[in-house]
């Protein structure tokens, strides 16, 4: 499967689980997307724990201009007040529409679990066909030392009451996926 087909499959499968998926030119466009979605929802706090500091300052700047509070690490002090989170994925699985997130840093987990809106960026070049295609990466990571890796697919959900689907249980109410066209620098 060529990379365009994989991207198309990724988008289709992620939408099946109510994720919002967009293709986007680069990080700055992603930052604009975050600010816009937050403005629509009137969210006032943002955490972005694994965005490269070299880029994060531009997002912080945009937040300041938009009247959004930048929640800095450690997030444990602010667990009751993270409305939105922007995180970087370490890859994706097209077949299931899943984001792969190496979240050894607990701040990544706190941000992706306690926020109401989770926006996650993945590079188009890092979308894999299926989970077996990342088996060696997982093995290497797990063998190397302690770690916490998540596959995230859609927003948190339940069907525990009368099998009626409800989105947003303990984790985020919304998951937005941004597919970045630019390669890792």
């Amino acid at each position: 499967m060529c990379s365009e087909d994989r991207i198309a499959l990724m988008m289709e499968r992620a939408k099946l689980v109510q994720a919002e998926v967009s293709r986007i030119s680069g990080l700055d466009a992603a930052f604009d997307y975050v600010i816009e979605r937050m403005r629509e929802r009137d969210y006032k706090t943002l955490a972005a724990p694994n965005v490269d500091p070299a880029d994060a300052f531009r997002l912080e700047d945009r937040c300041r201009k938009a009247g959004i509070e930048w929640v800095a690490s450690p997030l444990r002090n602010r667990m009751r007040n993270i409305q939105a989170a922007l995180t970087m994925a370490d890859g994706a699985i097209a077949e299931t529409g899943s984001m792969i997130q190496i979240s050894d840093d607990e701040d990544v987990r706190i941000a992706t679990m306690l926020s109401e809106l989770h926006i996650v960026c993945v590079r188009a070049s890092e979308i894999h066909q299926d989970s077996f295609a990342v088996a060696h990466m997982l093995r290497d990571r797990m063998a190397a030392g302690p770690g916490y890796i998540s596959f995230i697919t859609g927003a948190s959900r339940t069907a525990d009451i009368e099998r009626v689907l409800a989105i947003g249980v303990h984790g985020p109410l919304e998951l937005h996926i941004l597919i970045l066209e630019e390669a890792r620098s």
Partner: protein
Amino acid sequence: MIETPHDLSAYHVQIQQALNNPFLRTALGNFASAYKISRQKAFEGMDLQRKRAELASAKDEALKHLPELFERFRQQAQAKGTHVHLAHTAADACRIVSDIARENAVRHIIKSKSMTAEEIHLNDRLEADGFLVTETDLGEWIIQLRHEGPSHMVMPAIHLSRQQVGTLFRQVTGQPLDLEDIGRMVKVARSELREAFLTAGMGISGANVAVAETGTIGMLTNEGNGRLTTTLPGVHVAVVGIEKLVPDIDTALRIVEILPKNATGQLITSYVTWITGQTTCSTNPDGKKIHHVVFLDNGRLRLAQDPVFSQALRCIRCGACANVCPVYSKVGGHTLGHVYIGAIGLILTYFYHGTDNTRAIVRNCLNCQACKSVCPVNIDLPYLIKQVYRRVLDDDREKPIKNRLVSTFMKNRTLFHSALRAAAAAQKPLVDASKGVIRHLPYALLKPEHHFRAIPALADTPFRNMWPSLRYRLKNPTHRVVLFVGCAVDFVSPEQALALVKLAIAFNVQIDFPQRQTCCGLPAAMMAEEETAVDVGIQNLEALDAERYDYVLTLCASCASHLKEGYPRMLRGKVAPVRLEELHRKIIDFSSFMVDVLAIDSDVFEKDGKRTAYHAPCHLCRGLGVTEAPRKLIDLSGNTYVPCPEEDVCCGFGGSYSIEFPEISAAILNQKLDHVQQAGVDVLVTDCPGCVMQLRGGMLKRDEPVPVRHIAEIVAERLKLSQKPS
């Protein structure tokens, strides 16, 4: 607290309560139909049979090496800062977890869903030791608040209505709540439990898989509570059945690939979490999580070495065996299991929760094979259930009367057949000849719960007595077949065999009927009377002499499936292997013989036949894997096949099952008959005389009953006698 009846009479009371719960039946009925569709969709385009076989053999391989895998996991995980424990008993496991909580000065514990923790009743122990325990999976939280056990392994609260949950949440929060608004109820749980996540000192989780090569545990969750439970508190304890160990990440990914699809029809759960060693946790002084993995033996290590039962440990807890079980869909999990529910529950209860909790529930299996057909790791669940039943009988050392009768009569063919003939004579005054059923029986013989169907009368003359005058010899037959007629056709419905003989002569097929054949032995096997089943099996094998024929032809799907699949298993080592192989290869059902072997042409049948509904017998569609031939045959024979919902769901007969559990049998049957009557057909056909008895018996109790026939009869009827097939 979970209370499972220890005897049949208490069990019947519980069953009746479940059947009287209309919400439960509607909810489970809707679920059963929806599940099949979403599962099929989830596996679209996948070679599922291959994947199942691969996963089953990967699990078997792992089960052979559990001690080594445990050692590998322990080394790997300990090197990364995890404390690894092996608890030999449920009590040991509870003590270990409780000690960890005490050592870390924990007061409040949060839990994400773990069947293994349910198995060892961990909450009871922790609460007795003074800890506050909060379940965080929505379904588990609901049943915790209600002091109940789970009624499904994946959906623990599926037995409850939104109104029940809403009322419960009103009591818990003291706030008003719209009893229809499920979305609102989920929000209540979110806000109530969020505080628990933020303040608890310890999190307990299960694990779906434990990867030995890296010391990693894998968890599948949807709500996000699993990630929160393992992230926020300073201490994380995973309680894991030792059979969850797999050698490598590749095997683990196979389980992740199959489990959610088979459980709920999801391609994957919202979260798949892989935890290796001590991860970061800033709440602790050293910034590292205190991490324990407690592996539970509780009999598993011994079970893994058992030649018959080790396959039960392949189970990945998807719950599919309950999803498709017709009994489950009528009575729910609280009535079909102890902690573990559904087909696998009937088996595991014996090993984890003892004979008393197994005694009654283990009998509640129709042997319809639906569970086996969806098990993602190919566990032969119906067979293991019968084997557990046998163990229970042995433990109790007292056999039910019906078992003693079966073993006495069935082993001796002459005695068995004379008894049936004597019964045919004795029943005469009670028979309604126009319908072929017993008109009435004294109440002493039959309690009112058996009145859901008319009881078929035994035939005046069994087929075996007609045969001497029917016997024929063809000069150049296209095929030579030996007929295995089966007791139900022989003694109750010989007209079905007469229809077959008419067709055989018309299509130039030579039938032989050896008189020394007897009951196939399935009823004995169903009652766990294996010695008797083996005895009659050997008698039949010798009588049929399959080597001399092209096919062993059957009219009864149950007999056919037992001869084909049951005999090789039961008789292995007791007879020459070649005899078993020949029989296995040559067994064929009526419809497949007509359509696939004789390739009959529709020209030889009268057109414009009846609108015909079809019931797929369990032992034909799942036992023998025959699904297309009968439906084609209906159309080929000039009738019109009219599809009905849930054609492949059991009719509720199950031989002695319908006598032991008439109330459930009736509920299953009635749903089937509703579907048929709503389809507006002229006739209902099937290819098993047992199903015919059940379906016809039920129809005769209804207004405007649809006639029920064996498929051989409606085919024979439409044969153009003037035009002999070439």
